[in-house]
């Protein structure tokens, strides 16, 4: 069971309090009607599925109920950092974890 730091509660808590919410930084287009079918497909379905650092969303569903972002190494499952919704992707060049 993972340990997750909630950036709102500022506490590190067991995974069972959280719900995974898919890849992060996939903003819903402002005007979907302006998108081609391919662009809309990319928004709906295409995912990075990174092997290594993965930017993803979690929700502290059994806590403060906030959605937030995280960078996690999908090879070790270790969280590199978590940050609040709306904040931009942190620079991890230093944190980048080798396999």
């Amino acid at each position: 069971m993972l340990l997750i730091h909630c950036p709102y509660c500022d506490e590190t808590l067991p995974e069972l309090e959280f719900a995974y919410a898919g890849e992060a930084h996939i903003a819903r287009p402002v005007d979907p009607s302006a998108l081609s079918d391919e662009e809309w497909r990319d928004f709906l379905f295409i995912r990075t599925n990174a092997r290594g650092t993965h930017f993803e969303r979690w929700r502290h569903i059994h806590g403060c109920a906030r959605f937030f972002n995280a960078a996690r190494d999908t090879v070790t499952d270790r969280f590199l950092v978590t940050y609040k919704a709306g904040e931009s992707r942190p620079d991890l060049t230093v944190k980048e974890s080798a396999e």
Partner: protein
Amino acid sequence: MSRYRIPGHGRVDHGAPVSFIFDGKTYQGLRGDTVASALLANGVHLMGRSFKYHRPRGTVTAGSEEPNALIGTSRGPGRFEPNTRATVQELRKGLVTESQNKWPRLSFDIGAINDRAYMLFSAGFYYKTFMWPKSFWDKVYEPFIRSAAGLGKSPTENDPDRYAARYLHTDLLIVGGGPAGIASALVAAKSGARVVLVDENPEMGGALLSDPSVMIDGAPAWEWLDTSLTELRAAGVRLMTRTTAIGYYHQNFVGLCERLTDHLDTPPADAPRERMWRVRADQVVLAQGALEKPLVFDGNDRPGVMLAGSAQTYLNRYGVRVGDNPAVLTCHDSAYHAAFDLADAGSRIAAIIDTRRDVRPDLTDAAAQRGIRVMQGHTATGTKGRLRIKSVRVNPVQDDAVGKPVEIACDALLMSGGWTPSLHLFSHTKGSLAWDADSNTFLPDRRTEACQIAGAGRGLWGFGPVLEDGVNAGLAAIEALSRSGNPRDLPVQNDRLGTGVSHTELPTDLSAGKAKAFVDFQNDVTAKDLRLAVREGMRSIEHVKRYTTNGMATDQGKMSNINGLMIAADALAKQPPQVGLTTFRPPYTPTSFGAFAGYLRGQTFQLTRTTPIDPWAEANGAVFEPVAQWRRGWYFPKPGEDMHAAVARECRATRASVGIFDASTLGKIEVAGPDAVEFMNRMYTNPWTKLAPGRCRYGLLLGEDGFIRDDGVIGRLSSDLFHVTTTTGGAARVLNMMEDYLQTEWPDLNVWLTSTTEQWATVALNGPNALALLKPLVEGVDWDDFPHMSVAECSVAGLPARLFRLSFTGEVGFEVNVPARHGLALWTALIEAGKPYDICPYGTEAMHVLRAEKGYIIVGQDTDGTVTPQDAGLDWAIGKAKPDFVGKRSLSRPDIVAKGRKQLVGLLTEDGSKLEEGAQIVLDPNQPLPMKMVGHVTSSYDSAALGHPIAMAVIEGGHDRMGEVVHIPMPDGVRRARITSTVFYDPTGERLKA
């Protein structure tokens, strides 16, 4: 007194005899014995039969790594378990045990003919045959293989015992209560850190329990052990015995299985049998020690052949001599001490056979003093004895040339192939191992978790070095906890240091092809099986393991992995690391399902939600159905009524007068704030801006993929406040989806969501008399301005209420919401007030029928996650003028606008028969299989109101096929049905206007 027990010797209670049964015979043991030690005390070595060849087997070890001595254990009805390790099961009064995998009896087993034909049962033999004739596989071959395999018998009764679980958070978890673990705990405890020390044995001490001869810190080993444990208890260290660390998971999450009652004569009532501890530790020290390796030679599996260290354990811990004249076969110094201890305890050591030419003189001298003959530079090439070893065949080895054999009589053979660090938990963490060529073992290398490894687990030998290492690990751990501690000196006198060499198979003068030199005892994998696997192209240890099943027995390779690897590497002429090591997987030792299930059994397996009105339904004979997490009243049968009759009556009564229905499970979400209407416009397909306060509207929610996710009636209570209802199953999902958009896509909106599902109890009244019934009970509603699809805050039956006027039946209908605590009061008040109208409680089934008669859909039944609003005939619910809403873009994707999509329609059979839900629909009933199916029946009911069955279906291009006839091929013939509108009852909606 058992013949092989030494009075007063060991840690067992000689004053407390315990009798138990093995294969129907009663034996005497002592409190503190395991089944294995007690049987050995009685001179019984034969304890089991092997997996494939059914060879007679005795215990090889004295611990949880035992591959052979597996027995069935039981304590009365429902309390039987197979494959229990006799070396672990403690004696308790009335313990009944039996040997396994034999017929008719352990000493004479028909299955042993496999042993005669063993040349046929070579590695992977079953991949190469049993293929002809094809039909024989299912009928003949597989049943044969299955009945031959399988060790013990499964339990066949329900288990009356309870199991428990507990979370535990600590600074430091130390796994292994041997010298290294205790030393770590001693220094860590002083730092004030929360420390937990666990050990799988009934008492702490590890190797100290088997080897009491050393002096630690000036005291005899066992005295030091007692004072140390006292010190730890005093310092508040949590000492957990009979507790196995089964798995090491992410971020120092460790699973511990604590065995609470299997050793008790009579467990207290309600006591759980086992408890799974889910430990989160900031730091972990792994001090799991090392496991002794068997030697690989012909006949190394005969009862009486066991590990030297285990024999020493039986002697010193249980006061049991494993034989009168054991021989010793070794390539490591440690076995000498076993020999010496046994000799000093009165056994006559037949010989010490050492594969090494050169042995430390102090050892040979000590042997000489005891009159023990040491045969240096010798090998063992066979053993004799049917059910117990009688002699061992020994040959000298001179530069790889094996000389003439001699027979040495013995009643036990104590072997030592050296020691392997126990790194199972470490490898659960995916920590990497490094091959140490000198000691021929893998040692811990790169760590992935916050852990230390201490003692024999790092390849150290001797109590002195191990204790020192334990101290250092403890210091490193508390330093990592940013606490400070002081080193501790634990001097050791007459320590038993030692070294050894390592072998593949022992050299032999016999044809290797004939030798039955076992590597995996339980699975009957021999050295030549491993070499055969390599010959057949299995180059990775994973392939070799899977092809031969080496290391896949219930000891999880603890006995066989390293020997298997050495032999495979030798066969491949590679270094072991190039061949790899099979990953150890949790659990460390086999762990009962019950321990994993914990409290999640029976009624606490998963929660069942009930409404405030549920007690009334229960008391009034409702039949319930599970819907999502809820239990809901399905129908309310009168005496003698079946479901069909009850549902028909409930429907008739509702249409004739008034029916009452518990709708409390519907999800409810309060959407409040200045931007509430904007939010609703973006989430739901419908337009909300023009909906006046005090009015309701049917709302449709799509996923971003354009498919229907949920629906419900939504009331606008004020310009800034909506009362949203969702489906019963959808409540949590819808709120999560709304929060997702609100928090991450539209954080600028001033609107907030609150779940009020359980704030309100909801009672639905439907029927021509619903209004008449309700009116007198309501205060605060202007009935002249309360048409269909209205909502008001008022009081009903003197209770604060939110009253909706809406209908899911086509009759005049209301939904009364009152604070949940008053739900039952409201219900009973309405039942009372309804008596003059013959009010009829109805359940979910009648609700389904009534809504189907009106063509109202049930999301999840008439839609299935692939249905768009157009497909469902709900285009009218789409705000055409709205620029965007969730899912809008997907509705214009090519396949969504394409012709021929399955669309929801009504169906009426021509012969008036009822269709089966899920029945498939075709246009041409005479086509051959596979048929072209154009749709299926989604809902089908007998309609009491219409006097005939009705059905809803999705059919390709259905909306353009009104009036057409389609066919439903059933096993008993083809039905014809005509496509109709989905509204079967009161198409003009007259009844709503009442």
